[in-house]
């Protein structure tokens, strides 16, 4: 196997993992602090991508469109929190799963009403569509490098927010013991609305940057949402560090599995078996990873509550 291919796949996995982290971060905080399962988190990712595509069309400038789309999605997220999710904090998980499942159906149809059933075109911003030579003989798409940069930057910002600011301290207090945090005077209600907005904004960032690579279409948020859940379950619910480790793990394992498993199998098995089994194994690899992690550590890698 050529080393350039290996480096390229590792970078791809890293890039995908960072975007997964943006989705998983909001999800894990909502789940850890509010004890609320939000399946509609993927819908916010979809809204982010649709808003970006529309705003790029209107302004012609990707770098102007993204912040506006992130802001818009954050507003939608806060509206959702105020109208529906707030009712669900005290309810059991089953109700939360079903209510947010209903939200997915509703948001999908509303998006279909506004934008139609056809996928939207969101192209990579000009100047970034070509490859760059990052190592001698190794060309890598410039836009994917930008994604890695943005992902790292947002991750750093988030860590600073959670670990170094007062709001972050409240969040961590809420994640480890909500009642106690409330008793100590943490303004839980506005904090939850704000947190929801931040989570929505983060998923919009992921939607905006993955949109040009994947596709902007209805249902795009659902498959990636399940991956984000795998990430936070592996990492431990409520832990930002766990979300980062889990996301990079899932991103790398998924990408590497798809790229290398069929190759590896073809060396030990007949081509027919390899071409059948390779993709099958690769697609279930991360779920196997999750099953193994949960079997060994039912609370994930970095449990928050003890």
């Amino acid at each position, binding site marked *: 196997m050529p080393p350039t291919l290996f480096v390229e796949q590792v970078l791809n996995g890293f890039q995908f993992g960072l975007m997964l982290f943006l989705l998983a971060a909001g999800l894990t905080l909502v*789940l850890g602090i509010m004890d609320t*399962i939000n399946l509609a988190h993927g819908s916010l990712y979809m809204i982010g991508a649709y808003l970006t595509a529309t705003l790029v069309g209107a302004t012609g400038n990707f770098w102007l469109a993204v912040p506006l789309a992130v802001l818009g999605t954050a507003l939608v997220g806060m509206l959702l929190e105020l109208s*529906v999710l707030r*009712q669900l904090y005290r*309810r059991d*998980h*089953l*109700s939360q*799963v*079903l*209510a947010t*499942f*209903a*939200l*997915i*159906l*509703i948001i*999908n*149809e*509303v998006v*279909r*009403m506004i934008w139609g059933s056809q996928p939207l075109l969101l192209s990579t911003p000009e100047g970034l569509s070509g490859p760059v030579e990052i190592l001698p003989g190794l060309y890598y798409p410039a836009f994917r490098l930008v994604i890695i940069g943005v992902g790292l930057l947002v991750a750093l910002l988030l860590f600073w927010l959670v670990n170094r600011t007062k709001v972050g301290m409240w969040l961590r207090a809420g994640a480890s013991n909500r009642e106690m945090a409330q008793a100590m005077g943490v303004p839980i209600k506005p904090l939850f609305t704000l947190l929801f907005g931040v989570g929505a904004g983060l998923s919009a960032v992921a939607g905006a940057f993955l949109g040009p690579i994947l596709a902007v279409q209805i249902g795009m948020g*659902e498959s990636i949402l*399940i991956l984000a*859940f*795998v990430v936070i*379950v592996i990492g431990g*619910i409520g832990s930002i560090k766990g979300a980062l480790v889990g996301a990079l793990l899932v991103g790398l394992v998924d990408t590497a599995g798809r790229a290398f498993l069929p190759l590896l199998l073809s060396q030990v098995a007949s081509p027919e078996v390899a071409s*059948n089994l390779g*993709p*099958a194994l690769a*697609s*279930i690899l991360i*779920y*196997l990873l*999750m*099953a193994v992690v*949960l*079997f060994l550590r*039912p*609370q*994930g890698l970095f449990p928050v509550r003890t």
Partner: protein
Amino acid sequence: MRWFFPVVLLGLLLAFPPIAAATGLDFYQGLLTKIMVYALAASSLNLILGYGGMVSFGHAAYFGLGAYTVAILMREGITSAWVIWAAAVGLSALLAFLIGVISLRTRGVYFIMITLAFAQMIYYLVISFKQYGGEDGLRARRPEFGFFELNDTTLYYLTLGVLLAALYLMHRLVHSRFGRVLQAIRENESRALALGYPVFRFQLVAFVLAGATAGLAGVLMAHYTQYVSPSLLAWQQSGHLMMMVILGGVGQFWGGVLGAAVLSLVEEVLQDLTIHWQLGVGVILLFIVLFAPRGLAGLLRRKV
């Protein structure tokens, strides 16, 4: 008077095919078959979800596995219905056992997510086997029972029979010692444990029973549509079944049946009205969850 309504309903169901044939309402006979299949699947989910308190988000895996067993075995030239049914139920039970052994170690959100993850595994596995249709799905011819031919009408009666038998057994089960313990575990797991009940084993048995029953429902679904596709295994299908259970009433005996009937009818009506029918389904579901958490069976019971 408690038996009056069920007996009348049963009479109507038994008399429906000849009436439908005479009046040209064949479409509704098919719809009723589909509703009964979903009633079976939703009731099996209600057993673990409602009575066992296990929020399994992967019930479509067993449903789809049952359906795919029919299609694949028929494709491979095994046409005996008895073999196919036994294989489908057996495989679904085995899958439920394997998933249950690992998943039941976890609780709460982790349990919901790990059952979902396992169902996704099955989904992607099925999609990647190109010789069995991959994403396009596969034709599922109807197998041979020997002493009768499986057509739309016999399938209707067969499904009715299976549903009645399953409901009878489930009624016996939830009112047996086993069922009581299961509900005790749902109410307070540590207390059940302290009383000396092997909680894990009770839950696992219920989990396997529910999986096997869902597999059987999948078999009937394959006989009904004569075609299987990965959408049977998709996570939306698991959500769909959960929707039926909560719509009908979680842990209410008739919850699964009621929810399957009402949701299927509502979908049918909305699909006729608008292409945005899922919006209607979503709004109804949201209202049920927010304002009638005990479902339709709960609403009916409150009035009586």
